[in-house]
């Protein structure tokens, strides 16, 4: 009984093993079965319509929306708290002692985060065009 909940994760483990095994197996088999061409420096160069490529092969690209990504993490955390809340919501609502607490706590939590959201909107944090 004690281990039974853990045993439910056995399929997950099997899936991971199969996924890794498939990827590794395919790569290994292709090394053994495939014909390997001779590698030269010219062949490994990036193809640029015949001309030799100029500059670095890892150009810098602008990620102007990194601010949105940073804000996303903070809202992502909120979902983590929402999930156990949704699980216990009905139980705690049925209980007289915790009825007001369960709703009130989440409303005030959301309210404070919503203030942050409004601040971000007002400062045009989601606008990455310029």
């Amino acid at each position, binding site marked *: 009984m004690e281990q039974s909940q853990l045993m439910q994760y056995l399929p997950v483990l099997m899936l991971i093993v199969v996924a890794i095994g498939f990827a590794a197996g395919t790569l290994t088999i292709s090394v053994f079965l495939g014909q390997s061409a001779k590698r030269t420096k010219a062949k490994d160069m990036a193809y640029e319509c015949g001309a030799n490529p100029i500059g670095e092969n890892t150009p810098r690209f602008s*990620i102007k929306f990194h601010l949105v990504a940073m804000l996303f993490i903070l809202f992502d955390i909120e979902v983590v708290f929402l999930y156990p809340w949704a699980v216990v919501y009905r139980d705690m609502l049925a209980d007289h002692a915790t009825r007001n607490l369960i709703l009130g706590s989440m409303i005030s939590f959301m309210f404070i985060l919503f203030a942050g959201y409004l601040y971000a909107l007002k400062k045009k*944090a989601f606008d990455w065009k310029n």
Partner: protein
Amino acid sequence: MDSLQNLIPETMLPDMMFYVFAGLTLGFGILVVANPFSRNPVTSAMFLVLAVISMAGLFVLLHAFFLAAVQVIVYAGAVMVLFLFVIMLLDIKDEQKRKIKKGFLLAGLLSVGTIAGLFIKGLHATRLDAHPSPTTEGDTALLGKLLFGQYVLPFEVVSVLLLVAMVGVILLSKKDLK
């Protein structure tokens, strides 16, 4: 599945998996900090993702199922993506291999040695003969009851923390803030 359970005794498998996941976590951890093949921060970030995921495996073995999911969603899914974003944004070149300064190495060994001493002392101070039997289930419902009962005030404070972080991020990132 039944045949597999017959193959390996049910009580053995978690212990075996502990060694697998612990080894993976530590191995990937070493590759995050000191990768002998690459000094590129992107490599470190990718290995940190793997370390975090193997740690989620350890969480499952500790019956903290919800935390394992959170670990994968928040750490591997969101935090590491942000790390990679910033690495790409900054366009950091490969770090040159350089000699580790003696002073820093001494400081590192000293601090690790101190912690190791404390850890070993602590292990000896506890009664190791009294093996506590693992009983706690990381039940999401129980976790929620605790979080929204006893820990409801920290939960509210967390929202303020997130608000502060939001304001901080916007202030630091917006160049033309009026």
